[in-house]
């Protein structure tokens, strides 16, 4: 199913871009249309071919077997961690946010306290020492610290 949904999603993005491009002047729209119209056509072809393959292979099996469902659950779980990281970085900044995220992640996955502590210290040291001190990257301090402290 994903092999059809993904090109469909791409097709919708490309279609929106084509509609936008039609509103630009000749110089601004020439290249985008030159590229995106064939891409849209190829996407339609890809969806058609995928549908045809599925119809041919149809053996009466129900959609989304247990393996596919487990894969989807694992993917959604990994995405939840990604969202948690983004939120912790946004609110707590790079130092505190990274440390907290790593601590929660590793402990949730039952990593030993010693390895958890080493991982957190090394990661914070790289961010603060290498990025912050050595290469003078301004480290975002997070919404919480910048607003309230």
């Amino acid at each position, binding site marked *: 199913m*994903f092999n059809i949904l993904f090109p469909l999603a791409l097709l919708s993005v490309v279609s929106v871009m084509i509609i936008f491009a039609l509103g630009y002047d000749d*110089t*601004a729209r020439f290249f985008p249309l030159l590229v995106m119209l064939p891409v849209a056509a190829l996407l339609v072809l890809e969806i058609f071919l995928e549908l045809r393959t599925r119809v041919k292979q149809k053996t009466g099996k129900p959609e989304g077997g247990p393996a596919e469902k487990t894969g989807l659950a694992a*993917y959604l779980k990994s*995405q939840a961690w990604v969202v948690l990281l983004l939120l912790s970085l946004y609110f707590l900044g790079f130092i505190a946010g990274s440390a907290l995220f790593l601590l929660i992640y590793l402990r949730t996955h039952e990593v030993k306290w010693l390895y958890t502590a080493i991982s957190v210290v090394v*990661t914070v040291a790289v*961010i603060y020492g290498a990025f912050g001190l050595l290469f003078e990257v301004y480290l975002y301090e997070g919404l919480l610290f910048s607003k309230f402290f």
Partner: protein
Amino acid sequence: MYTDILNGILSIFDPMVLLLMFGGMVVGLVLGILPGLSGLTGLAILIPLVFGMEKTQAFALLMGMYAASSQGGSVTAILLNIPGTGPNAATLLDGFPMTQQGHAGRALGISLAASAFGGLFGGVVLALSMPLLRPIVMAFGSPESFIIVLLGLAYIGVLATASPLKGLISGGFGVALSFIGYQEVSGHMRFTADSIYLFDGIRLVPMTLGLFGIPAAIDLIMSGSSISQAKIVHATASDMLEGFKDLFRHWRTFLLCSSIGTVIGIIPGVGGDVAAWVAYGSAKQASKHPEKFGTGCPEGVLAPESSTNAKEGGAMIPTLAFGIPGSAGMAVLLGAFLIVGLTPGPLLLRDHVDFVFSLVAILILGNVLGSVILALAATQLVKVVNVPGTIMGPIILILVAMGAYSTAGNILDVLSAFLIGVLGYAMRRAHFSSPALFLGYILGAMAESYFYLSLEAYGWMFLMRPIVLTLIVIGFFSLNYKWLGKLFKKTGRAA
């Protein structure tokens, strides 16, 4: 003349010069290993330090750092699937699968040998081409750049031989993404949805890290197993030596890709990304086993690495001869020339031959020593691939976030990298080609700009310029020579 050349080369063996070069190289290697930071960042940091320094010392520090930075980026590309810089993205296509198969040491050996010898190749070409600099550089204008970029785009088809249709869609979608933002020619804002963040388009670093680094981290998180997939990987001296031997086994690929890198380096504004991908595509086309590319093929590591490092020698040519920087790094170095009281151009080549040859020697030594330092550190660095995915996955995510943020100091870049990461992961699941998308994204807008510049300067006659025609013919044959070979054989047999 010859005394000047000899003096220039010998001047870099001054202990202070060597010490500064070593310091610069260590900074460069660390910069390369840290995602998002590049040699350009290093130049910006180190330039204030060169005020008051003697010119050879100043350039030993700067160029030592610059030469070593791309080598550091290859290490993370090979071991962690995180490209340190744009050109390193081509290295991970085969470097990372080699690591997963337990050949990390060999992949690092190939990468380091190709970097060292690629740098040597670029430096030697730079030295030999001094008397010919002017006609070489003047021969390349926007029409030639357009054709080179177009040739790079044509390699999308070469990158995605497993599923050409999906490859073309991926590449085309990448090109479409490159159009987001301000169009230089018309001044139009395109596809920005009035978001100020998108006025500059999607930035390169979040794109690179998101497309390649995040899917790798998600895989680790989902599987929980190490990058080496439960095999314990070591990088012994014999593994590295094997990689070193690969360079000589595939010497034709090395020469081809180093030459491509040098020529592309000469052309101002085209850049290292193009060099790495064109070299990768050409190596795949020329290989007897193109089907092995992308699965952990030594030539796939050799090609981008040799071209990326050879490119810097080429990029020095227009910088020294005309004060026209061949790359962003060279533009910053141009500032350093002025700081030490030198003005790049024909007079520099006439009045400071010794210094120019010092630069060539620094460039060569920087590449060679950078590889030696990394080779010594490789046995320890490679241990990272044995760390369980449960620990490595979240650390990679954090480093990717930090890397995406560090270039522009914009927190939205982190979000951008993660959204691109979701796209990259979805592409992988649906068997679309991330490298083809990346190539399209790098080259799309560049092709458009060069096209309009050429059209404005020469009209449609730009297609009739001798070098343009030559490049078109070379491109046609290099892309189709296998098919043409078969055709000629058939015709020969029929006759």
